């Protein structure tokens, strides 16, 4: 059965492993993946625990559609209390791991405690074991995976590994599967490292029954064809074709020095194409957005770079151009470190030194200047090893500011302690709001990306129809504030559901309103699993996830004042032209606060950002945590 996957509880301190079924009632309330992870975190999290203490709980969850022929169903989510923000974090990754975990019989793995020696957790055909990983410690992510496959004598084992950054407890650490797929944001790799957990591995041959195979395949084929021909996927959906994205009028780059190169200046598209070794895809994906490139020597390939890496690395590319970017992308994967967080912290540090806010010696002379490609590679290595300047920056921007001083903190472009990606978030009130209220920090995964294409009349009707039933107008102009809280509310619920089902957000309405959302997913739930959840019920499940994340953060002492952006984020970008002035008007602090309040009303939060009791009871959250899992 598609719903028959289990949950495993692993205590690495005692070596105990328990396996339980997942009650059907929880499925209809929380579906799976991210939302069920939220439920588990709220029940099992120990309030106030240090994120890197063995008591912090780490939850791995595969989306409900993973392993089924549903376009883009490949996403697994790592959830923990983030060592970077102290709040909940969700690091998602595609590739082939999530499907294999479900074929191995598991949807969720809850890890507590700390192993005495390095271990990995292996799931195979209904059994989950803790295995020795001492020989893997110190290895890069891909190297670890290959060694595990070699030792298990099975080239089809999938592995989600940390690299040296996670082992050194760098708060920027990520975990990686396949060639480059990474659970990047929030430092979940360090949580694995703090448990002496080198990897999760999976191999499975347990069948996942489909309720109505004919109907499921028909719907899936139709949605796959729609994804392949959608304007978003056609334009940006093949390996390395992300450069035109930077030319979209609405994409603004922030955190860039006036003299630093923008991606379109730093990288030539023809250079990128000449390094490409074709596109590669995740499980069941019709789009294949990843670019692969040949390593020097020509035989081996790696995946990347991607849009985010290009945006974050551009100011440092200098004369190294695309080759510098490729080296940066590969280095981050091998070390298991978040490319966006590490490059944005490097940008922050370089800016502080350049303007004289912080003397170079405070970074031990290791701070690269803009355009210094070898310099940033060296700094990223030290962030992963937690040595030199990297020992300071590897703690994250806010913690580093405690050493560097308030002036440095004021220049940090972050939300809740996580650096904002350098793109798009300032270009519209909707993106700024999405960054400001995101419960995981400066992450734009749930932002209303569909807004970049403009809001047509048809799109407006769709957004305001079922299941949202908004009564407010939504303006079509991207820089408008009208109805923007609604866009964020809608895209958050859509992204939340995609993460629960395991569907990549690039193949969801988050990026293109012509792509699947609640109605299509309801049909797929019915034909694949037999669950009869109409769009309004799915919408409710997403609302539960959003509130549970907020409740988790409030329990951890999160101040709703953190729902906002630092002043530095609201000021115009350095060297900004006429358009920036317009943006500044749009991001007038009072209007921005009004947008946040509007968002609070939609989420049924009080003026301080806490869920109203009526919202909790109507969604059945008033008894949480209920420890049913």
């Amino acid at each position, binding site marked *: 059965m598609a719903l028959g996957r289990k949950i495993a509880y692993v205590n690495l301190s005692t070596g105990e492993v328990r396996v339980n079924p997942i009650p059907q009632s929880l499925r209809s309330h929380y579906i799976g993946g991210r939302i069920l992870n939220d439920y588990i975190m709220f029940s099992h999290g120990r309030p106030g625990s240090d994120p890197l203490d063995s008591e912090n709980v780490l939850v791995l969850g595969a989306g409900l559609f993973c*392993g089924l*022929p549903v376009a883009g169903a490949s996403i697994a989510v790592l959830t923990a209390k983030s060592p970077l923000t102290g709040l909940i974090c969700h690091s998602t990754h595609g590739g*082939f791991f999530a499907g294999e975990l479900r074929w191995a019989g598991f949807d969720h793995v809850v890890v507590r405690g700390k192993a005495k020696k390095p271990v990995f957790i292996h799931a195979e055909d209904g059994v989950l074991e803790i295995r020795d990983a001492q020989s893997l410690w110190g290895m890069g992510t891909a190297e670890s995976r290959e060694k595990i496959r070699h030792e298990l004598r099975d080239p089809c084992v999938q592995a989600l590994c940390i690299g040296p950054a996670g082992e050194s407890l760098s708060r920027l650490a990520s975990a990686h599967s396949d060639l480059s797929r990474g659970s990047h944001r929030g430092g979940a790799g360090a949580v694995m490292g703090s448990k002496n957990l080198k990897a999760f591995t999976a191999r499975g041959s347990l*069948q996942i029954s489909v309720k109505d*195979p004919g109907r499921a*395949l028909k719907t899936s084929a139709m949605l796959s064809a729609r994804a392949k021909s959608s304007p978003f996927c056609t334009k940006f959906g093949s390996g390395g074709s992300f450069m035109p994205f930077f030319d979209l009028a609405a994409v603004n780059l922030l955190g860039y020095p006036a003299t630093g190169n923008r991606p379109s200046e730093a990288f030539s598209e023809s250079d990128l194409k000449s390094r490409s070794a074709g596109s590669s895809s995740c499980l069941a994906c019709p789009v294949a957005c990843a670019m692969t490139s040949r390593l020097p020597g020509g035989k081996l390939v790696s995946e990347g770079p991607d849009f985010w890496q290009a945006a974050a690395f551009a100011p440092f590319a200098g004369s190294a151009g695309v080759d510098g970017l490729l080296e940066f992308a590969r280095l981050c994967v091998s070390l298991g470190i978040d490319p966006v967080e590490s490059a944005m912290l490097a940008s922050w540090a370089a800016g502080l030194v350049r303007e004289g806010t912080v003397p170079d010696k405070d970074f031990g002379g290791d701070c690269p200047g803009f355009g210094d490609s070898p310099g940033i590679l060296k700094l990223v290595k030290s962030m992963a090893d937690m040595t030199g300047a990297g020992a300071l920056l590897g703690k994250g921007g806010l913690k580093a500011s405690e050493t560097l001083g308030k002036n440095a903190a004021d220049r940090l472009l972050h939300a809740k302690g996580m650096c904002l990606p350098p793109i798009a978030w300032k270009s519209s009130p909707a993106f700024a709001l999405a960054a400001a209220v995101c419960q995981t920090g400066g992450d734009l995964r749930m932002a209303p990306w569909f807004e970049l294409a403009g809001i047509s009349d048809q799109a407006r009707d769709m957004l305001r129809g079922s299941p949202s039933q908004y009564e407010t107008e939504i303006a079509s102009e991207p820089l408008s504030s009208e109805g923007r809280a609604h866009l964020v509310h809608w895209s958050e619920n859509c992204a939340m559901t995609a993460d629960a089902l395991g569907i990549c957000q690039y193949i969801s309405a988050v990026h293109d309103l012509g792509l699947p959302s609640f109605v299509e997913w309801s049909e797929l739930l019915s034909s694949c699993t037999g669950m009869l959840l109409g769009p309004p019920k799915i919408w409710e499940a997403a609302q539960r996830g959003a509130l549970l994340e907020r409740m988790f953060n409030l329990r951890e002492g999160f101040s709703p004042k953190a729902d906002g952006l630092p002043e530095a984020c609201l000021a115009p970008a350095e060297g900004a032209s006429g358009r920036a002035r317009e943006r500044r008007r749009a991001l007038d602090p009072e209007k921005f606060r009004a947008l946040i309040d509007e968002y609070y009303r939609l989420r049924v939060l009080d003026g301080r950002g806490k869920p109203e009791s009526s919202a909790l009871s109507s969604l059945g959250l008033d008894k949480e945590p209920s420890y049913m899992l």
Partner: protein
Amino acid sequence: MARIIAVDSNSCTGCRTCELVCSVARTGSSNPLKSRVNVIKWELEGVRIPVLCVQCAKAPCISCCPVDAISRNPSTSAVEVDAKLCMGCAMCLSACPFGAMSLDPDTESAVNCDLCGGSPACVAACPSGALLFAEPPKAALAKKRAAAAREIRPE
């Protein structure tokens, strides 16, 4: 001339949709071990090759089957297994040079790609055009065209 499924591995992006669709269409459940087609990969070398029954003209599986359970379907020319006759000896698995013959783990009967009776689900679902269902000369011509295109428009 009967059609076969020809593979253009250069076009394969490695998404394994063919495996998922094959197992769901033929068994009602998703399980790559029950799929008649599998994408074999060497990720580090960037190699992805869908492997499935090529419907050999002189099929060793047919010759070696001790109970004559394997025969050619006269209308599709597909090599097919009669599950009622099959005794599960796996001789065909040993004889096939491509690993295209397998035993279903539940029924213990031999299984291979039978072209879904002339309308293969994997070909219809492949999003990258890596699987072609055509008469061999036409499949070859399509591959020649793709090879020529790579000559003049290298990726």
